């Protein structure tokens, strides 16, 4: 039962909240949730009650606190049946300010009647717009089934009448009575992808709302909820000036801070293989393909590119032309599209050239460009897929020349990046020759990347700063 002392304290707190002036007109419940989840396009209908469910440690409380934060300072209340305020702030330090700015009701020792009474007081003045019950199970489990259902119906009625938004946090795995009553259900799950944690939130229900995508990736990096929209093709017209990145100790820079931090740069003589599956959009691969080339050229070095099948040569040239001055491109870059007849002719190759003949061209180009490189080093970026398509009936020869290339580049302290399709028939042999190896794939529309060799965390790839370079956000 509620002690008179604790009850009086709560009521004082409630009174303080109710006295807080309203701070903005545009905080309709539906837009608040939409802002946090980035689901504006989904929120056509009013969502008053939302259930966030998931197992322990999946991030439910952080998601709920983000929704509370979006309510606006002093316009939300957090009803905790699990932990006191101080402990919650210790668990999620990034949300301390949000917790401090909103009403916090510790109901661990309260009964359902008192809690419902608190809710009525909170919503009466209409100034508190979002109330989080964390967790609802903590309270509901004390009630029998019929009583629980009636208490839940009472809350739904209060939410609908007051205009407040109620967010229920639950660890109950199956469907419970509240699942049928609430307007929306978000499920938060934690899955493992090759020993790395990936968090997803799943929109199970959002009444009156069209849901084009049900699952999204999110991270709790720095204790904050950050969700990832599906990968969007970058707008290359917004490309900024490319700043060259100097070598990192003895290693070459990738031309991208994010890639340098992930791999520590490219060790001279090393081969990095990027494995990708068929769902990875080309611009995501381009964000790994082009920055090292641009940076090599800006550093006064040379580069050779054998593009991926389906590469847009015109766009590649436009991007390169914006980043690097024309003489450098002309003198120190060679793009050899082995799938394009004109390039094969330019290289004086027969239409049915063998892997050895292609290798010969690459070797000659390497020698030619080495002379023009400021420190005689060359970067070779090569699509294995393009060569596989060309030499499907002679993959052994392709492997042989690739192996020779790797040895040559290693001895010359050059850098080598290979793009390898996940379903490549020579995948395992290429990977065994690679000094480092990373994977790109798509999950829930988000492009994810991680290093297998060396082992790294898993990251979401976006273009937050510039369309040509990758931004990597760690999933934790």
């Amino acid at each position: 039962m509620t002690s008179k002392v604790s009850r009086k304290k709560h009521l004082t707190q409630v009174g303080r909240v109710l006295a807080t002036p309203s701070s903005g007109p545009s905080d309709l419940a539906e837009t608040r949730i939409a802002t946090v989840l980035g689901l504006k396009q989904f929120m056509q209908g009013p969502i008053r009650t939302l259930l966030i469910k998931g197992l322990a440690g999946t991030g439910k409380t952080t998601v709920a606190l983000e929704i509370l934060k979006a309510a606006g300072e002093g316009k939300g209340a957090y009803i905790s049946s699990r932990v006191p305020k101080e402990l919650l702030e210790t668990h999620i330090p990034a949300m301390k300010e949000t917790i401090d700015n909103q009403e916090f009701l510790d109901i661990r020792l309260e009964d359902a009647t008192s809690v419902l009474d608190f809710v009525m007081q909170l919503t009466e003045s209409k100034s508190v717009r979002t109330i989080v019950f964390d967790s609802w199970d903590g309270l509901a489990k004390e009630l029998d089934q019929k009583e629980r259902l009636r208490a839940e119906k009472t809350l739904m009625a209060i939410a609908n009448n007051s205009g407040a938004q109620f967010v229920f946090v639950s660890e109950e795995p199956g469907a419970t009575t509240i699942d049928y009553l609430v307007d929306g259900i978000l499920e938060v799950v934690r899955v493992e992808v090759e020993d790395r944690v990936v968090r997803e939130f799943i929109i199970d229900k959002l009444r009156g709302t069209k849901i084009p995508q049900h699952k999204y990736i999110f991270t709790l990096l720095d204790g904050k909820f950050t969700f990832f929209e599906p990968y969007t093709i970058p707008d290359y017209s917004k490309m900024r000036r490319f700043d060259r990145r100097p070598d990192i100790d003895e290693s070459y820079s990738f031309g991208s801070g994010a890639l340098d931090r992930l791999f520590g740069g490219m060790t001279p003589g090393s081969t990095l293989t990027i494995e990708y599956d068929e769902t990875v959009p080309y611009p995501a691969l381009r964000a790994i393909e082009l920055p090292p080339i641009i940076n090599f050229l800006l550093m006064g070095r040379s580069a050779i590119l054998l593009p991926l099948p389906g590469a847009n040569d015109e766009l590649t040239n436009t991007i390169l032309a914006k980043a690097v001055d024309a003489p450098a491109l002309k003198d120190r870059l060679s793009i050899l599209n082995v799938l394009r007849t004109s390039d094969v002719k330019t290289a004086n190759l027969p239409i049915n050239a063998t892997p050895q003949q292609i290798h010969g061209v690459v070797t000659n180009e390497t020698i030619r460009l080495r002379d023009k490189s400021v420190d005689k080093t060359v970067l070779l970026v090569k699509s294995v897929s393009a060569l596989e398509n060309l030499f499907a009936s002679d993959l052994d020869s392709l492997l042989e020349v690739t192996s020779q290339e790797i040895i040559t580049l290693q001895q010359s302290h050059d850098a080598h990046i290979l793009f390898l399709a996940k379903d490549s028939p020579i995948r395992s042999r290429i990977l065994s020759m690679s000094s480092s190896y990373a994977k790109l794939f798509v999950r829930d529309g988000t492009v994810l990347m991680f290093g297998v060799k060396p082992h790294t965390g898993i990251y979401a790839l976006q273009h937050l700063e510039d369309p040509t370079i990758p931004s990597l956000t760690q999933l934790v």
Partner: protein
Amino acid sequence: MNSSSLTSGTEDFAISFRIAVHAGLDKVLGQSGTAAVLSHMQMTGDLPDTAEFHKKLLALFGAQGTLSLERAIVKDLATRLKWSLEVLKIEGAFDFNATMRAVESGSRA
């Protein structure tokens, strides 16, 4: 009718009304919800007049919610006083005050 029987009739109705309010709310809101609503309305002791009760319910649950709750109360009261459930027949808008006044005057008669 003498004054003592009039008082007795009023008391009977007040007791029945209080019981019906608890029972009617309980059917919809459950024990916790009922206790919370009555506590919030500061109606744990004597119940106020029906107009004020209606107004407070309206503030908490809105028109539709209040209608459901009041109909549950009237239904319980009518059953308790062995009145016909005709009082719940919807002819035009349901008027809690008018219905309760009718039930009250009927119970005194």
